[in-house]
């Protein structure tokens, strides 16, 4: 297991360095002088310009600049936003809980609906239920989620008036963030109605962000389940006279879950990408919306830092999924 872990991490390091090069290159490919961009409309006088250039290391050769950049990264210094002048890591950390909360809710929704649906479809292969689930999941998979979000707002906020249109909580409530998770914070604040307000703000974005992972999980569960159900040991278990629920729930599901876990892990990238659209539509103050805004504000240090941190998160989660896969799949556990 330790060797497996070390090989995996060994493979990750060059990729991560590549990601840092990509993020570093981003600022250098963009046309325009970074100092002039930072100074904005007011401009700088030549003496100050030279001073800044030296201070930022822009007079050094590119490879030295890159090493400098890596050194800053190692100190946790991702630079400063052009727009807010705050350190990027701080901005990211303030906004990340909002995205995490939304993503967690979305993945929980996707698993609690997608997994049983996929199982049901596999067990009743060829039935109307199977066709229905498959059609729905393919539709979900093909959904332009930015449009889906607008439609849901139209229906539930516009016509029915059940849910709020945007944000994380009604402006009536204010409390200091403790965990950064609005559901928990509103609960802790003890203010009447705060929790239900936070919850009602969360429902539509969760559905929108969870739609594609739900569809993918349902499809994957169904095909994994179908494969397992045709195996000899399942037939043996049936022949032994075990009740069907036990065969499916215990023998088949355990093995069918192995590929499904991988797919759930791979959805993290999908979720963070989907967060860009979902957060933009619902004005959800997370990193997806922040990235879009930073791009349109030409706040390149923020884009660079955000991209790097998001890639790091995706890589770490993928590593964890690989490890988990090794843990639950005995075939891999023994061969490594």
């Amino acid at each position, binding site marked *: 297991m330790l060797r497996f872990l070390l090989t995996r991490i060994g493979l990750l390091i060059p990729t991560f360095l*590549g990601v840092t090069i990509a993020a570093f290159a981003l600022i250098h490919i963009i046309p325009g002088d970074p100092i002039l961009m930072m100074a904005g409309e007011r401009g700088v006088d030549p003496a100050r310009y030279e001073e800044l250039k030296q201070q930022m290391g822009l007079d050094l050769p590119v490879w030295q600049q890159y090493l400098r950049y890596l050194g800053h990264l190692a100190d946790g210094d991702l630079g400063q936003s052009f727009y807010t002048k705050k350190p990027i890591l701080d901005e990211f950390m303030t906004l990340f809980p909002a995205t995490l909360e939304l993503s967690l809710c979305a993945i929980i929704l996707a698993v609690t609906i997608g997994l049983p649906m996929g199982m049901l479809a596999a067990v009743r292969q060829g039935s109307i239920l199977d066709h229905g689930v498959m059609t729905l999941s393919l539709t979900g998979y093909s959904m332009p989620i*930015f449009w889906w979000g607008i439609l849901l707002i139209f229906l539930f906020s516009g016509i029915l008036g059940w849910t709020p249109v945007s944000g994380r909580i009604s402006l009536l409530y204010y409390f200091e963030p403790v965990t950064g998770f609005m559901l928990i914070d509103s609960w802790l604040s003890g203010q009447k109605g705060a929790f239900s307000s936070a919850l009602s703000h969360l429902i539509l974005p969760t559905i929108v962000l969870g739609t594609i992972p739900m569809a993918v999980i349902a499809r994957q569960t169904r095909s994994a389940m179908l494969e397992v159900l045709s195996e000899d040991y399942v037939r043996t278990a049936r022949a032994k006279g075990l009740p069907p629920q036990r065969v499916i729930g215990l023998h088949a599901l355990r093995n069918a879950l192995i590929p499904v876990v991988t797919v759930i892990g791979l959805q993290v990238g999908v979720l963070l990408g989907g967060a860009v659209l979902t957060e933009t539509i619902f004005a959800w103050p997370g990193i997806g919306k922040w990235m879009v805004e930073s791009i349109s504000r030409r706040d390149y240090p923020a884009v660079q830092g955000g991209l790097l941190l998001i890639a790091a998160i995706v890589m770490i989660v993928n590593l964890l999924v690989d490890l988990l896969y090794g843990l639950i799949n005995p075939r891999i556990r023994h061969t490594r």
Partner: protein
Amino acid sequence: MSDTADTQASSDNPLAQVLAEFWFYFSENRGAVIGLCIIVLVVLTAIFANFIAPHSPIEQYRDHLLTPPAWQEGGDWAFPLGTDPVGRDMLSRLIFGARYSLLIGCIVVVLSLSAGIVLGLVAGFSQGIVGTIIMRLMDIILSFPSLLLALVLVAVLGPSLENAMIAVAVVILPHFVRLTRASVLSELNKEYVIASRVAGAKLPRLMFLTVLPNCTAPLIVQATLSFSTAILDAAALGFLGMGAQPPTPEWGTLLADSRDLILRAWWAVTFPGLAILITVLSINLMGDGLRDALDPKLKRS
């Protein structure tokens, strides 16, 4: 499984036989056939947009601002799906938009597929440093969420339809490279490859004429599925203002234009999204059918 009449009829022509067999398995999947029909319809609409569309997509009818669809009160049959805030006919804009979406899908897939095949072949044949570098580069692309990477690439290149297509092509590239490399590796040690190597075939011939034709099935399936991803991602970029720019009637851009109107003019928002959904869904249905028909492992099960 018994031969059907049409496989027997064309048994003297090998290509026709392959096609007949393919069609036999493909047509067993009802969803795939429906998907194919809808795609053919969309393609025809796009080609003959000039003749089908009742109006020009950019003509502004100033006395028909935000006309609702014809069947609603206040609707006008001259504008079957209503008009947008500056009086342009929705139906005509959607019909012309089909051109953009299909063209985007085609160009992106052709770009990405051809680059992916070359890189994948090189990575498969050279197991040394070149192959490693290519695969690590693909890993780097894959460690970013695809839409976010596309968005940042467009931001760097400058927002336009061409750059959006390039960005999406880059983002889906790793799938083609990995797939090509994997199939090359599984073919490399087979006897026919060794035989042609011994017979003195040069590397390009080995790559493109000997090995590549035997890797096409998974690539066709992936290309179909990527076609739908490309349309979706390009529409998402258009929606975020980073793809096609107004007044281009690209479907994502149409949505972005009328996004704030949802409570006042549902038709301006609903129909472009529906067009995207139906097109992407049909392509995905077709992709599923293709996979079943082309994957020899699944054929007899």
